[in-house]
Structures are given as C-alpha cells and as structure tokens.
C-alpha cells in the first residue's frame, strides 16, 4: 500500500513553485474536461483564458474582479496566519454593502462625493466588522467555533439584504423589482481608466496591500499572531493575549470584506440588489491560500481567480458551457494546491503489506 512519509526537509523552492504547479495541473485537467464536454480543447482554452483579457476593456474587468478578491484575502490572511478561520467574509461583505448602501440612500441629498464616499466606506467597514464581531464575541466568550458561526451568518446576512430590498428599501419606482433606488452620482466611485469600468475602489486595495505588507513584516502583533498559528503552545508560553488575536483576526477580515462590499455597490452595481457578490467572500479564501497568506502572492492569486471568473462568463457565452464551470476551475485549483502542499511535506512510498502489519 502507499504511505506518506515525512520528508527530512521540505524544499523551499517547491513552496513557491507549488501554486504554479497547481495552476498547471488545473489547466491540464481543465483541457481534459473540455474535451469530454465535446469542445476542442485549444478553442476552449482560448475562450476561457485569452478571450476575456485580449482587449483594454477586458483587462479592466480583470482588475475590477481581482480588486475585491485581493482586498478580502488580505484581511482574511491576518486571521488565517493565527489559525483563526473566518469563513464568513461573504456575509461580512453583504453587511458592509448594506451599511454603505444605507448611508448612500439616507444621505442621497448630499452632492459632495468627497463627503459621501468616505462616509460610505467607513460605514461599510463598520458593517463588515460588526458582522465579524459576532463570531469573535461567541468564540472569546463561549469558545464556539468561529468557522461555523461565521459561515452560518453568511445566510443570515443574505436574508437581511433580501428583506431590505423586498421591503423598506425597495425602489418605489422600480416596477416591483427587488432592488433599491439607484445611488446618486455623488455616491458612485469615479472611473479611473478610460474605456473601462475600473473605479477608485482599486485604491483601497492598493492601500490595504501596502498596510498588510508593513503589518506582516514589522508589527509585533502580526508576529504574535503568526506564533499562535504555527505553535499555539508557544503563544501560551509567551503569554500572548489569545482573545485580542481572535478579535483582531476576525475584525480585519470583516473590515476588508465590508470595504470590498462598499466598492461593489458604489462601483459597478450602483444600488443594492441580489446578488452583490458572485461569491468573492468564499473565493477570497482560496486566493489567500494560493497566495501563501503573503501580500504579493495574494495579488497574483487574485488576478488568477479573477481570470477564472471572467473565463467562466466567456465560456458560457462562446461555448455554451454552464456557469458552474468557473466553480469547477476554482475547486480544482484549491484541490491541486492542497495536494501539492502535502507532497512538499511528505513523499509517497510503496510499503509492502507485511511490514505494515508489523509496524
């Protein structure tokens, strides 16, 4: 039978190469899947990975999609590095969007974007943090699993949004569609690149990227959280404040998701409706891991993940493939990454039955 054996020393090179390897494997298996679906693999490859970004507009779309992914992944990485598993960024994104959208609808008479947009981002961040504070409180107070609580709150957030746009916030002139009024122009982020839909939300992501880079490398708190993630007993031995880490880890993810939600409603969407996000909050978990919880890696991973989103849309239109094809590729990417990671730490060895029984 096959057995996994710990390697004496994992290769440093492979730690960085394994995301690329996972990507290559995803492509190879993807080609096979396309062939089975009756598509010529090269044409499908072109439609999936080249078509979406072969013009300026497409490139802009790539940035629009990768920006929230990177932003949320950076926030999640703060907690993930300390083994604090916030799986509910999608819900925090929705709550951030609700808070920001609420400000936009409430202050619709404010014509100064320099006042309204910052207020919306503050509200969005607070909304996301509020939603993340629930698992943080329950974890620190009652030791509940933040994984389950944060995940379940995604559905609660979705229902709250649904209630709002079916009920109190429904656009009276919207022919009964479940959506809010369109935001005033002062609540819409300006376009940054001519001929695309790239908006100023990208700046938030760039700022978060720089902040995370500095925080991870130089901050004592980030070091302490890394220790808690790598060796929980060492964190206890050193006397690091576990509760503070849980709060910080969850709130960072919540704030990032809330900001991303704000960018979405103040950017390409321009109102509250369902869905606000095509699963950015969940895809960002994959982005954070493919990016090795490191800011530079997260940027690269977010571009790849955004391409998978665009490729999925393009494959629907050009090849008449179902929308689920994006999810298939995302899943394969994470699967192959986890598999290659296992093989960095372990090697496969064939062991005969006899020695297995005896050992």
């Amino acid at each position, binding site marked *: 039978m096959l057995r996994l054996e710990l390697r*004496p*020393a994992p290769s440093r090179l492979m730690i960085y190469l394994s995301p690329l390897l996972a990507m290559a494997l995803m492509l190879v298996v993807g080609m096979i899947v396309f062939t089975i679906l009756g598509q010529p693999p090269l044409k499908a490859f072109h439609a999936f990975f080249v078509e979406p970004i072969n013009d300026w507009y497409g490139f802009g779309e790539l940035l629009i999609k990768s920006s929230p992914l990177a932003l949320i992944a950076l926030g999640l990485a703060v907690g993930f590095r300390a083994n604090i598993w916030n799986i509910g960024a999608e819900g925090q994104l929705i709550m951030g969007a609700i808070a920001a959208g609420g400000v936009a609808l409430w202050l619709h008479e404010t014509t100064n974007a320099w006042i309204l947009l910052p207020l919306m981002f503050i509200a969005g961040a607070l909304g996301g943090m509020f939603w993340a504070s629930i698992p943080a409180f329950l974890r620190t107070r009652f030791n509940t699993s933040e994984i389950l609580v944060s995940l379940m709150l995604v559905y609660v957030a979705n229902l709250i949004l649904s209630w709002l746009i079916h009920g109190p916030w429904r656009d009276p002139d919207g022919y009964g569609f479940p959506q809010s009024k369109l935001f005033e122009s002062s609540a819409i982020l300006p376009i940054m690149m001519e001929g695309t839909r790239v908006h100023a939300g990208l700046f938030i992501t760039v700022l978060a990227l720089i902040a995370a880079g500095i925080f991870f*490398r*130089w*901050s*004592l*708190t980030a*070091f302490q959280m*890394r*220790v808690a993630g*790598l*060796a929980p*007993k*060492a964190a*206890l*031995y*050193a*006397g*690091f*404040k576990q509760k503070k880490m849980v709060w910080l880890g969850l709130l960072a993810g919540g704030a990032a998701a809330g900001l991303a939600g704000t960018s979405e409603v103040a950017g390409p969407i321009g109102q509250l409706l369902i869905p606000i996000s095509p699963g950015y909050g969940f895809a960002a978990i994959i982005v954070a891991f493919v990016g090795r919880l490191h800011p530079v890696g997260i940027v690269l991973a977010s571009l790849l993940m955004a391409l998978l989103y665009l490729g999925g849309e393009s494959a629907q239109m050009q090849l008449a493939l179902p929308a689920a094809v994006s999810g298939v590729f995302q899943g394969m990417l994470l699967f192959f990454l986890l598999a290659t990671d296992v093989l960095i730490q372990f090697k496969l060895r064939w062991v005969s039955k*006899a*020695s297995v*029984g*005896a*050992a």
Partner: protein
Amino acid sequence: MSLIAAPPRLELRGITKRYPSVVANQDIDLVVQPSEIHALLGENGAGKSTLMKIVYGVVKPDTGSVFWNGQAVKIRSPAQARALGIGMVFQHFSLFDTLTVAQNIALALDQKQDMQALSARIVEVSNRYGLPLEPDRLVHLLSVGERQRVEIVRCLLQEPQLLIMDEPTSVLTPQAVRKLFETLRRLAAEGCSILYISHKLDEIRELCHTATVLRGGKVTGMANPQLESSKSLAELMIGKELPAYRRASTRALGEPSLVINDLSRATTDPFGTSLKHVQLSVHAGEIVGIAGVSGNGQQELLYALSGEQPGRREEVLIKGQEAGQLDAAERRSLGLRFVPEERLGRGAVPEMPLELNALLTGYANGLAPKGWIQYAKIREFSKACIERFNVKAGGPQAAAKSLSGGNVQKYIVGRELMLNPQVLIIAQPTWGVDVGAASFIRQTLLDLSQAGVAVLVISEELDELFEICDQIAVIEGGQLSPAKPVAQTSVEEIGLLMGGTRTSHVTEQRVA
C-alpha cells in the same frame, strides 16, 4: 561460563546506516554472547537507537550483516525479530490507557489469544520474574513502573533469547530500578541475553558484563564496566575530560523570591494529576530542586507557576507580589523566566528563525519598541546568544527546528538568561542534551544562583539535582514534600519519597 564454544547470540558486522543529513551508524561491529548483559553506551545522537532499530527490524541497514546464533539473517520487520526471539522494551511505552493489562499484551502478540489462558500465563510469568501484575487492571490506573512491567512481561511471554532495553530506568525510582535489575539478572542467568541502552554510568557499572561505546555513529571502545570508573566511562563516551563544577562554598541567601502558597489545582485531564496544597519558597541565591517520577504533577505545577494556566491571586508570590492570577507575560515583567521541558513548539517556534524566536519572550526588552520589530536588534541579540552559549547553528536566520535538541535547549536557556531573570524556573534542564553541554548548563545555573537569582529546577535526574541544588523537594501524586537541604538527605531518602505512599499502598492492596 561453559558457553564459550557456542556461537554468539547476536553478531553485527560492518553495519552502516545513512540518513539524508547524517550517518547514524558507520561500520559498527557488535557481539552479544548468550547470558550476557551488554551495555550500549553513548550520548544522545551517538547512534544507539538506530542500531537497536536495525536489530529489531524497524530500520534496514545500508550495508553490513547480522548473525543470529551463528546464522546470517536479514531482519525485515519487528514481527520477524520477535519470531527469532528478539524482544524490545521501548523507552516510551506503547500501551493503550483504556485497555486492561491482558488486552494490551494480547494486542502485541502476533497470534490470536485465548484471553483466559493468556491471563493465567501473565500471572505465572510475572510472578516467576518478580514483576507482579494483575491482568484485569486498566493501564491508566498503573504507576509508571508497573506500566514498564507490562512491557517487559509482554516481551517475556514470547520467551526471548535477546531482550533490548532502551533507557529503561529514566522513569523509575531508585528502588524500582533495583527491582528491575534483579529481574534482568535472573533473566540473564536463565540464558537470555540483554542489550541495555543507557547513558547512566553507575547503572551500567552495576549491572552490565560488557559495554560497547558509541560516539558519532562509530564504535569508539569496548570496556568491562565493572573495572572502569564512571569518570573513565564518561570520557570514553564524550571523548574528552569532564570539567568539574565551580561553586562558592558560602552564599548569602536573600529574601524569598518565589513563594508557592497552598497551591491546589484539580486537573481536567483524566490522566493528569491534581495538585494538593503545594507549598514551597525559593530564596534569592539558592537552587531548589523538585525530584519526582514523571506524571506526578510536574506538568501541572509548571503550568501553574509559569502563568500558562493562571489561578488564584495568592497562590504564587513573585518577589513578594501576588501573581497567581497573572498570565505568562505579566509574570515575566515581575522578573520570572521559565524554560519549559518541551523545547520545540512551546519554548520555541520550530518553523521560525532563531532571531524571531528571540522575540518570543524578549519583545518587552527593547527588541520591539512601540510594537514594531527591530530586525537589527533581534539579529544582534540572537548572535550574542549563539556565541555566549555555544549554540551550534547556521546563524540567527536558521530555523529553530534545524537545530539538534541540545542546541535548541542551549538557545532557549541562553535567551532567558540574557533577558535578566530574577527568578528562573527550568524543567529538565539537560534532557536530551549531550554530556558536555549538560555540564555547561548546570554550571550556568550555579553561576546564576551565585549572582542572586532564585532558581527552581524540576528534573527526573536525581544525580543532576544532587549536583547543583541547595535544597530538594519531591513531588508525588500531586503533593510536594517539604524541601530538605541536600546535605541532610540522601538519594535513598529522596528515592523513597519518589516511590511515595501512593504506589506502595496500591501494591499492598493488590497483593492482599
């Protein structure tokens, strides 16, 4: 003996085993005669364990041959080794706590067993060798010595011709050690050969007929231990002379720096030990030792003292201040420093470089002002620690896990000492550390106490405690005996306390 004409029981010729980063055994020859108690002596990392795993079929040698009663054999698995008549008692027991003695033994035997008959055989064999065991008792109710008996009886049931014992006495009281030796002598007299692995020289001199000494994976000597002194054996083992300890004859004792005040703590772990009314003072300038067989409350006491599991405020006083409710970081700021027994994963983060490991307990000492890490400072600190404490490492950027256990220990001890302790608690200071480094660490503790630091040492090695401590107390069943000055006690007396009332009580109950 009249058996000289018979072939040796076990003969190894030219055994070599290479691992990716180290040659564990190089060209090793070893001969064990029938009825012989043969010591395999060497420091940690000398290659003893690898060699024994080769004999027991766990590891395959790269080159070399094995002869069993004169026949060339290839031992491919432990099952095959057992079939040949080789038994091994491991240093770390492999027993299931929730099963009975008989069930545990049945699991290790290669054939299916009739439990009734097996229980009868267990009673018979254990009585014959003076290792009384009750087959129906659950293992978690047994003392450590009794668990070892289970392991030994398990081997004896297979009527071995060679019994390998890996550091068997490290968990036993002196009295239990004596009983074990009686059993081993009786076994040898009946013709069974014994390979006895240890680094405890007195025991080897008392028990063994022949000793093979390993150093750095090679055989460096053969000796008759009964004709050697402990000193000469030690020098064979480490290849150089041991330095003598320097200690001042008189020292002024200061105020009590660490006071444990009626500390009781119920354990939540079903196999843990509850602490009962622990009382102890350690004065500035003295070394107090706590002896005891492992699992008698040492872990629980250390967690309570370090602040990893805080409790009531008045239980612990550090330099006169009530500190029982404080966490580890807060106690550190009062001057307490702690070196735990688990180095990797608790005392240091294995994946992180040494320089970041300096930050683990040193961040409040100017290495990260205002919460921002100063890499130049931690590198400098780490370099100084590596130099002063002679840590063998690739430099401040080497990951902690790339160091050997002894060097990680030197780094952790060094780190805590460089951070100016006023009270130092240290657990198993020289566990897994080679002889040279061990004497360096002990000397460091002596120097520290002379500089006015209060030192509390928790160790399972009685020799070590008698070498460096001013006072010794014994922990047994969660209770701490009153500390006694070393001059007014003896290894005998401490050993009796370590065996404790609890163990003898249980034994009596079972015999009755």
